[in-house]
């Protein structure tokens, strides 16, 4: 991994994670998800909060894909191409959310933001580990949340619901390519499995230290996971994790991210 991106580290709840990416001065940065306002419901204020949060989430996805391009010059070229394409997709998603947020009366910086996804993923020192956390955990989990949340958006805000549908369609490809490449890398280089295990263990440490939220009651979408390239064994593992979540809310972090 190179040191192209000179962003240091910070300590959150006793865990060392990557320091925040650069943000405009209008933003108030907080360090935990539960510090970002989320009143729930479908009021106009609630929708503004969610779109503001979603804009920052998409921006973090852009930043994570970009730092993966920058940090791993020796990764297979075809994988770098996928990550570069993801940069464009996430940039478009950010622009869409920002435009929609402004269209319903929002002002950039109106609410605090947290960059914990970035801080976790950018701290991981292997590309396979980053994809295991960012694509397979955060993005795949958020897609299951979207299946539940988009119909709720549609009740009050058809335009935003359509926008999220379009975004989720793009995200499918990101999870697919990550699954494909994790499998290829693991097959060609056995230590990749250790890198992934280390990354997931790090995620667990961060969640254990920072999550104060209750796990969301969203079941694993088996058919959806299959379409994303997860094997039956991997889907079974995700389902087992759901049970563990009662005691240890790892998925809750992923679920909350794109809610």
């Amino acid at each position: 991994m190179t040191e192209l991106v000179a962003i240091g580290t910070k300590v959150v709840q006793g865990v060392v994670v990557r320091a925040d990416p650069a943000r405009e001065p209008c933003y108030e940065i907080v360090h935990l998800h539960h510090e970002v306002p989320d009143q729930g419901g479908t009021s106009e204020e609630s929708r503004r909060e969610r779109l503001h949060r979603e804009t920052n989430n998409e921006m973090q996805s852009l930043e994570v894909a970009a730092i993966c391009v920058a940090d791993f010059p020796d990764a297979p070229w075809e994988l770098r191409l996928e990550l570069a394409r993801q940069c464009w997709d996430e940039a478009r998603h950010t622009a869409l959310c920002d435009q929609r947020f402004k269209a319903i009366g929002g002002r950039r910086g109106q609410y605090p933001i947290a960059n914990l996804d970035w801080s976790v993923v950018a701290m991981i020192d292997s590309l396979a580990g980053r994809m295991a956390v960012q694509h397979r955990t955060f993005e795949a989990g958020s897609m299951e949340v979207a299946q539940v949340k988009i119909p709720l958006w549609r009740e009050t805000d058809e335009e935003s619901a359509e926008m999220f549908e379009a975004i989720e369609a793009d995200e499918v490809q990101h999870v697919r390519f990550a699954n494909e490449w994790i499998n290829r890398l693991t097959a060609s280089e056995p230590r990749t499995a250790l890198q992934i295990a280390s990354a997931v263990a790090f995620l667990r440490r961060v969640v254990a230290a920072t999550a104060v939220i209750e796990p969301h009651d969203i079941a694993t979408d088996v058919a959806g996971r299959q379409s994303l390239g997860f094997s039956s064994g991997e889907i079974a593992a995700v389902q087992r994790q759901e049970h563990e979540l009662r005691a240890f809310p790892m998925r809750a972090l992923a679920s909350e991210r794109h809610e």
Partner: protein
Amino acid sequence: MLTVKERGQFVATMRYIHVWLMETLAGWVPSTPELEVKLLLGEHVWDAAQQADALGKRTFELRLPLQHSVRPTDAYVDLLADIRAVGPTPQRLAAIYDVLLSAMGARYRRYLSATDTLVDAPTVRIVERELADMARMMEACRALRETLPALQLHDDDWRESLRGREAAIEPVVAYADGAVALEA
């Protein structure tokens, strides 16, 4: 007429520069504060990747490995390193969109005037597409700076100095036997 080797060296060198561009823009995404600039850079990471990919396919046709890059001359590598180290957003934008892309366009046009357009037609076609791409990228930056004047660089001397330094580097392609070939 340029030889196959000369054409291959040029294409592989330009691929090196496009890969550098992809990595540099990507590296700047997290460290640039302005949202609109992040989005511009994110889009252009993909443009630069596709440009490098097209050149990398052409290297194979010119008797070099697939997706092969050749390191440019030392002076050019030093220039790229100095650009990558730039911090303030107006300077970053000026370095890439006012100086580097424009200069790469000039170098591509000189290549087109030197190569045989029939023998080297596949390269010509790639270069013509890349010139159009780069013009679109520069126009996107110009439009953004018009919308957000704070992104304008007011230090013309800085920009002209960088432009002059780039123009003084000739050749960019390290044709000598000591050229360092790199797989990207």
